């Protein structure tokens, strides 16, 4: 079973090809070019490197959010387009669940943080439980100060991964001191292979999502939607 995974939820374009649960090829691009420009050429190149054509694929996985609104829509549209044309199952994987996988093996709390703009991060907390990660909080958009306040209550070590680490590392270190753990950047950022690893697990137990029902998981309304509701929620 070949699975193509697409993650465009952040500024990073992450792709992976898994054969069942084994990672065969991966790409990672962290530049300022837009996802819409680079994602299809990258998919073609990755498939060519692995010696695959679209007819070899058995499933398409996508990071379904939270993340950048436009990025999520590009990933969703690309994954669904391929899945619909090739009549393949599509599998949505929560971006935070995938990112938390970077910390598999870590024994304290795992706290993925993604830049959510407006001085907030997308976050959920995870803990290793018998070799798999268990989520121990809601998915949320939260101010880093509030998250740290919450984490100050416990005495556990906390691993931070994600694209918001660069912005808040100093604040985190000052607040949690030695309890804060960081990985090198290459281990901290989102990878297509983490989306693929979780997708392979779901596929192995016969799970997939409805092509038309699968939607980006934004967590919160866009600013535009809030403003729209405020100004035009009611007629006169």
């Amino acid at each position, binding site marked *: 079973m070949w699975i193509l995974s697409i993650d465009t939820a952040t500024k990073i374009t992450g792709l992976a090809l898994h054969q069942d649960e084994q990672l065969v090829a991966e790409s990672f691009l962290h530049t300022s070019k837009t996802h819409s420009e680079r994602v299809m050429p990258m998919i073609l190149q990755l498939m060519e490197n692995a010696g695959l054509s679209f007819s070899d694929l058995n499933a398409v996985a996508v990071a379904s959010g939270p993340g950048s609104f436009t990025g999520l829509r590009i990933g969703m549209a690309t994954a669904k387009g391929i899945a619909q044309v090739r009549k393949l199952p599509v599998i949505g994987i929560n971006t935070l669940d995938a990112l938390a996988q970077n910390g598999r093996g870590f024994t304290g709390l795992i706290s993925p943080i993604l830049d959510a703009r407006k001085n907030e991060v997308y976050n959920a907390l995870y803990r290793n439980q018998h070799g798999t990660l268990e989520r121990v909080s809601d998915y949320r958009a939260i101010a880093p100060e509030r998250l740290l306040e919450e984490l100050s209550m416990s005495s556990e070590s906390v691993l931070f991964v994600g694209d918001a680490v660069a912005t808040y590392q100093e604040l985190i270190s000052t607040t949690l001191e030695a309890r804060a753990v960081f990985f090198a950047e290459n281990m901290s950022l989102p990878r297509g292979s983490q989306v693929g690893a979780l997708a392979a697990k779901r596929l192995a137990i016969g799970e997939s999502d409805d092509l038309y029902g699968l939607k980006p998981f934004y967590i919160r309304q*866009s600013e*535009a*939607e809030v403003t*729209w509701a*405020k*100004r*035009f929620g009611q007629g*006169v």
Partner: protein
Amino acid sequence: MRFVSSSLADTQRFGEALGKLAEPGDVFCLLGDLGAGKTALTQGIGKGLDIFQHINSPTFNLINEYQGRLPLYHMDLYRMEAEEGEELGLKEYFWGKGLCVVEWPQVAAEILPQDILQIDIISQGQRREMKLTAHGSRSREMIEEVKKLVDLEY
């Protein structure tokens, strides 16, 4: 006000009535899912403005301009980011000399004029229900006028 259309032709005739009433600076905001008939309605609006060119979906161009009795600025903001609205000079269109028909207007919520005519299109098979909501005196007047036209024609 609600208008129920049972065919593409109905939708376009309703659009035509709206187009006949349009004045410079009017802004119609169309809300509805993909395939609801936003572009079909706009084709009717174009006819009401005496535009004889074919009106296409502006999804890929963001803004298409047509010249008729008034200029028609047909926009689809689905792919726009809120910050880009300023760069594109959307305000100049909204307060300009023509009629703006805006598909997926939510992203421009910050910079739209208040007195928009909101048209929600709800689709069910061939049936289309168009719900008109006024957000000021001009759009309220439009709704009263279109009621008369539609009553006369149907």
